[in-house]
């Protein structure tokens, strides 16, 4: 009983390590292709449209509501300490450093990551990738790379838009609804937020962009070529992306604090 349990544990550990190794190899292969892929920029632009421009509405809407709720919660919290003027700096720092990159990455995994994974998975299932190989076209170079780079480039921009809209959302609730002074709101924010804080958010969102895109592309490309396999690849994309983003978030925050 105990022996079989430990054997299973070992087996799972081995599978996990194997997956990590496979991810690393795939990532290395993608990195090697970056200079060549940049030459075919129109393909990347198309994917920036898919991953970024089409995610714009959901990102802006979510940013607005996250900012608004931050305005409400922040006001309630700060009022207890009698410092509701700090609402601006609290909301801005929370959005820039934490909520902006993380929530954007989670939404990105749900909106763009799943689209990528299922698209590549279906290409695999319908033998489109095999057909490309037959024509001596490297599917990684032609199909995977533009999608990966499109995601990587879109993510920081989406996070910046999220944070900006969020700050306006917080201002909307804090100033218009709760009656915090506009001048106090902005001046406290400007004196508290430093360039490093913005940079931290950008660095985070860049890392998340690489992670989410890599996971989506890997899972899609390596999916089992059946209807079930594509579905599973899509699910795995969201699950792995979410966990990895939150894990990376803690590590990055600890490293940059």
């Amino acid at each position: 009983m105990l022996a079989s349990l430990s054997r299973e544990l070992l087996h799972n550990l081995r599978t996990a390590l194997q997956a990590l190794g496979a991810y690393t190899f795939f990532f290395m292969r993608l990195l090697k292709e970056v200079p060549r892929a940049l030459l075919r920029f129109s393909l990347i632009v198309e994917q920036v449209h898919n991953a970024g421009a089409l995610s714009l509405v959901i990102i802006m809407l979510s940013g607005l509501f996250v900012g608004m709720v931050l305005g409400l919660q922040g006001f309630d919290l700060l009022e207890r300490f009698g410092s509701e003027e700090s609402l601006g700096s609290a909301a801005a720092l929370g959005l820039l450093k934490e909520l902006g990159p993380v929530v954007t990455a989670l939404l990105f995994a749900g909106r763009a990551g799943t689209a990528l994974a299922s698209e590549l998975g279906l290409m695999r299932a319908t033998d489109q990738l095999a057909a490309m190989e037959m024509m001596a076209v490297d599917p990684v170079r032609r199909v995977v790379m533009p999608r990966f780079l499109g995601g990587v480039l879109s993510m920081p921009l989406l996070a910046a838009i999220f944070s900006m809209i969020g700050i306006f959302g917080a201002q909307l609730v804090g100033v218009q609804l709760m009656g915090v002074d506009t001048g106090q709101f902005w001046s406290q924010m400007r004196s508290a937020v430093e360039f490093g804080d913005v940079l931290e958010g950008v660095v985070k969102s860049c890392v998340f962009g690489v992670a989410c895109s890599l996971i989506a592309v890997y899972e899609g490309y390596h999916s089992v070529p059946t209807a079930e396999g594509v579905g599973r690849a899509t699910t795995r994309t969201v699950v792995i992306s979410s966990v990895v983003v939150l894990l990376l978030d803690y590590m990055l925050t600890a490293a940059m604090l």
Partner: protein
Amino acid sequence: MRQTRTIELGTGLFVLLGFAALFFLVTQITNREFGLGDGGYLLLASFEQVGGLKPGAPVSMSGVTIGHVEGIKYDFSEYKARVTMRIDSDYNRIPDDSDAGIFTAGLLGGQYIGIGPGGSETFLAEGDQMQFTQSAIVLENLISKFLFSKAGEKQGDAPAEVSTP
């Protein structure tokens, strides 16, 4: 063709919005200023105590911001904190006997440097050191001084121990 154009338009809009947001976050939310001007000139001042002064804090005269604190370092030749300030080049008529003090904006606000003009006919220029400085007030020192003076009042002359009330 029409399809491609729509895609390009959408992508262009997204990229433009993204960079606009980044620019907004960097210039409007932070206290850093990216002026396109000549960058102003540097002044130096040494303080016994800078308190919570931070790089980027405003330098003001009569409440008007004329520059920003660029750097704070400890200077072992004087055993004081050396503050470097970048003053906008528009404000180039600060008398060379002006004094600089560190003040707090509001009760819990950030600290800033206030410059009080002197009466000299010559003006400070690039790299000059300000002669007269007034340190930041450390609240703890102020409170302990107050408590000591209160204790002294009660017990006559000897500086008595401060008893917790």
